[in-house]
């Protein structure tokens, strides 16, 4: 078992309601008399991981369809049209095809690492996904170090990609892996520093709390508008996130016109689809981080109105003193969850739009951009935002 998977199981027990693991409590109430505690814990953990996996596959399936439609319409064609309405079942057909494909391991590959690499990549992204809050009161794991956790876990996918590239023992894959390693080391710094700007204003790394803090101005108190260094920090973050998720114009690790398929060249079938799921899940997570820390997270005028109308507390103390589910607040949580989902998919749409619009940059240009422009600019943003906030506190008290 990889460490990431262990971490995922530790953190991904489905938690509903702040601080309490309602899912596990329900299990204990229903089955506590028949099963030992450790079996219940294990059951909760496995269910949590399974739900996160399901979420990732759904996101990947929808994103693949969206990508084909976006690509089609940008190139003045329709994209998939035959399988279901506007081809919406195409991804399911593709999924079945991938499952049935022969799973090949090259003769000269390093078998152990070749098989371990896709698992490591997927385990890391599953762990990272556990930090995604579904709604203000519904989440897998309410981690105090939310963003930090996501960034740390998604940095582990890099190692998986490098492992895949080296283990395949082919020139294309090794080049892809080296590009990935160099690119991620270069862009992790501007990514982190750009995210530091809203984190500094929020004073928390927790994604749910950060989103809550932007509820002012009828749901429009987004961090984006809080200080003049936020917009440049957002742009820098978005560029760095493109490089981090290997998306065009920074898709050098798989650059199909130069390296066949880069680090994935030797993979087929289900192992290949693991890399694909990781790519789309990583895009979704990076967009979700952008949505939570720059674009208001759950907050929008609609969310605000729903909150005013239906009430916000999902759990209330009942008459007997026990915690009860407040059914009235469910529409608010549904609207909030949908808001974040729409914002995240808007980020994904932007990434796709860029992919089918911009040409790929050269390797040296990627490095120049990361080290010479993005890193210093991100530092300037962070220092500027810190000074701005300090000055605001000094002047306004």
């Amino acid at each position, binding site marked *: 078992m*990889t*460490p990431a998977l262990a971490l995922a199981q*530790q953190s991904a027990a489905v938690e509903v309601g702040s601080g309490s693991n309602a899912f596990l409590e329900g299990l204990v109430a229903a089955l506590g008399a028949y099963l030992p505690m450790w079996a219940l814990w294990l059951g909760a953990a496995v269910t949590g991981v399974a739900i996160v996996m399901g979420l990732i596959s759904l996101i990947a399936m929808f994103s693949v369809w969206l990508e084909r439609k976006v690509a089609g319409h940008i190139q003045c064609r329709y994209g998939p049209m035959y399988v279901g309405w506007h081809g919406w079942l195409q991804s399911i057909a593709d999924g079945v095809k991938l499952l049935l494909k022969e799973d090949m391991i090259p003769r000269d590959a390093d078998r152990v*690492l070749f098989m371990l690499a896709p698992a490591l990549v997927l385990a890391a992204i599953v762990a990272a996904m556990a930090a995604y809050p579904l709604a203000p009161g519904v989440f897998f794991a309410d981690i105090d170090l939310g963003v*930090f956790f996501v960034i*740390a876990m998604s940095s582990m996918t890099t*190692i998986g990609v490098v492992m895949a590239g080296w283990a395949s*023992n082919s020139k294309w894959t090794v080049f892809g892996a*080296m590009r990935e390693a160099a690119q991620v*080391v270069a862009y992790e710094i501007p990514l982190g520093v750009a995210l530091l700007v809203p984190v500094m204003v929020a004073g928390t790394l927790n994604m749910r709390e950060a989103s809550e803090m932007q509820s002012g101005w009828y749901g429009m108190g987004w961090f984006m508008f809080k200080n003049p260094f936020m917009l440049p920090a957002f742009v820098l973050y978005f560029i760095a996130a493109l490089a981090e998720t290997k998306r065009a114009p920074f898709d050098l690790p798989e650059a199909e016109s130069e390296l066949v398929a880069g680090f994935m060249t030797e993979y087929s079938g289900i192992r290949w689809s693991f890399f694909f799921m990781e790519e789309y899940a990583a895009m979704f997570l990076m967009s979700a981080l952008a949505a939570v820390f720059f674009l208001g997270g759950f907050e929008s005028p609609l969310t605000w109105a729903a909150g005013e109308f239906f009430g916000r507390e999902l759990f209330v103390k009942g008459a007997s003193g026990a915690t009860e589910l407040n059914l009235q607040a469910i529409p608010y949580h549904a609207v909030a969850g949908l808001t974040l989902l729409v914002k995240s998919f808007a980020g994904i749409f932007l990434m796709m739009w860029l992919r089918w619009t911009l040409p790929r940059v050269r390797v040296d240009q990627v490095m120049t951009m990361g080290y010479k422009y993005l890193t210093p600019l991100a530092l300037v943003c962070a220092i500027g935002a810190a000074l701005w906030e300090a000055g605001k506190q000094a002047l306004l008290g």
Partner: protein
Amino acid sequence: MDATDKLFYGLVALGSLAALGACTFLAGGDGAAFALFAILVLGGSLVCIWERSVVRSAFCLIGTFGGTAGLFLLLGSDFLAMSQILIYVGGILALILFGVMLSPPDLTERKLPRVLAGLVAVGAGVAFVAAKVASTVNWVQAATLAEPEHATERIGVGFLAYDQYSIAFELAAIVLTVALVAAVYVARRRKVDLQEEGAQG
């Protein structure tokens, strides 16, 4: 994979199972979790010494670093655990791999020095840890200690919020920056060098 390899991996697997069983028997779920992470750390470092291919050795460090992060998690130090993964797995290991990746996948080398080196390394490590633990831990007190509070959750904020550590923290940052700038300066090809190369070429 030859006979010595099989023997080595068999021993590692047996040792891991024995440790897992013993820890679970002695301390229940906590013991099992500790044993899992400790096996990752120790197994990762043992295999790292044993493997002939330098890239495989580097990949074994995932287990070592990840297991250390897990141990930090068990101790309630979430921040340290995440930093461990972000810095060591995401940063330093990626750099190491970038350095060693162009080596060929199967290097052949005589076995004996590897075994000796492994024994010396393990022996030295065990001796050091044993001496350190025996001389510093107050066993009577340790048995009565309460569970650790989540004291280091906000360690990053703590570094900067309390005057105690901020100077040391910033000094460390400056030292790192100076080292980076110096490395870039040394690695940079100067105009004179380029002109000389041009004259030769």
